[in-house]
């Protein structure tokens, strides 16, 4: 199977602070990888390096065959194929739900407005928000906002979806609706990299779990291996705290 993401020796520094200390990760086509670990371990930074929202200090990141650490790569073109969902949704408050979804496909000339509206309507149906097309984000609940954010990312027909703690800012009763949308997406074969604290979700959906701490990968494997039978002491301690 083709590798969608290849990360070799990724290093990220914030000033003098070394946040990622050499990460090697490969994600196969259609694979769902969950990143878990204590806060400050570098999970989100790692994720944000995959579409270069964070500048990369060292190492190599290859997405869909494009080396995004190469200065000659048009990062905007690569980003069109990487959807990203943020902890705080980051919907555009001055645009309606439908406009949030259709802006990028239309602006980047992937679709006409009519085509984009069609795609938007069908995506909104998929996430169960067909009736919310014309409202503004301020009128939605947190769970609804995050579902719109997922639809917005999917409107670009990405090959890879990145999720940065998508349920951490939600009230508990809204976590389920967002996770369900993500589960459906995973079943459809989307390649996903998910930073999460939802161990239930990771166990059920992930093909592979990566446990990070201190800027390193401490342990990785199937959910049964990492969650069910962890080998490293740091993984065991972490799981004891969260489970």
């Amino acid at each position: 199977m083709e590798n969608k993401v290849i990360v070799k020796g990724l290093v990220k520094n914030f000033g003098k602070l070394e946040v990622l200390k050499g990460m090697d990760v490969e994600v196969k086509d259609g694979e769902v990888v969950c990143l878990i670990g204590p806060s400050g371990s570098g999970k989100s930074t790692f994720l944000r390096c995959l579409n270069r929202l964070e500048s990369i200090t060292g190492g190599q990141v290859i997405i869909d065959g494009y080396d995004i650490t190469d200065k000659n790569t048009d990062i905007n073109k690569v980003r069109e194929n990487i959807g990203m969902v943020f902890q705080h949704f980051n919907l555009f408050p001055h645009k309606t739900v439908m406009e949030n979804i259709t802006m990028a496909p239309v602006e980047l000339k992937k679709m006409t407005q009519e085509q984009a509206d069609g795609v938007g309507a069908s995506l909104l149906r998929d996430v169960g928000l067909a009736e919310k097309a014309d409202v503004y984000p301020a009128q939605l609940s947190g769970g609804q906002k995050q579902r719109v954010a997922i639809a917005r990312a999917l409107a670009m027909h990405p090959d890879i979806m990145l999720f940065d703690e998508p349920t951490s800012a939600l009230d508990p009763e809204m976590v389920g609706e967002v996770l369900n949308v993500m589960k459906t997406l995973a079943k459809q074969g989307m390649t996903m990299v998910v930073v999460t604290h939802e161990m239930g979700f990771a166990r059920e959906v992930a093909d592979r779990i990566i446990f990070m701490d201190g800027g390193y990968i401490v342990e990785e494997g199937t959910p049964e291996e990492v969650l069910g039978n962890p080998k490293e002491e740091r993984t065991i301690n972490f799981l004891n705290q969260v489970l």
Partner: protein
Amino acid sequence: MNFIQLFTKYAPTFNEALILTLQLTLVSLVCASILGIIFGMFSIAKNKVLNIISSIYIDIIRGTPLIVQVFIMYYGVGMSILKPVFNISWNELGGVFTAGAIALSLNAGAYMAEIVRGGIESVDKGQMEAARSLGLTYGKAMRKVILPQAIRTMLPSIINQFIISLKDTSLISVIGIRELTMNAKMISANESAAVLTVYIIAAVYYLIICTILSKVAKVLERRMSYGK
């Protein structure tokens, strides 16, 4: 002469002066808005040189009185740069109006740059990240996502700057342009018994335009609110 008689007699000159005031304001504000966007962008740019250029410009303008800026532009630049270097005088470039408009534009431009910077910085940085993550370029993300939101926060300050600039045109009278203030000054020279009335007429003119501007601002602000 009572107020009505005086006003009827001089209304034509006041109306002419009003037009000049409005032209001066309009030209300056258009130029100032462009300067404001450019230097506002400079001040938030990642490039340090652009940051420094913008902060020097803003510091110089904010740290000196407008009237001195007007003198420097009209007399200073006119005599020490235009004449010796380009062998041209302000008269050939549109006269005091041009000199005054440039001075006023540069002045208001610096304040607009600060307003633009503040407006852009008020937008959550997640907005830029979301737009960029979809594949939009920096410029497109600015235009489609950041600026429309920034304008909303900026609007009250922009209108405030418009009002200040409108009133600042009165300072251009020092280089002899017959706008509202200069007009009142010239009339009062002939109507020494009615000096108070003449200046009050000028004041009322300013008051009316400024009031209209603030009302327009209120309407705009209400129109631009979304989904709340």
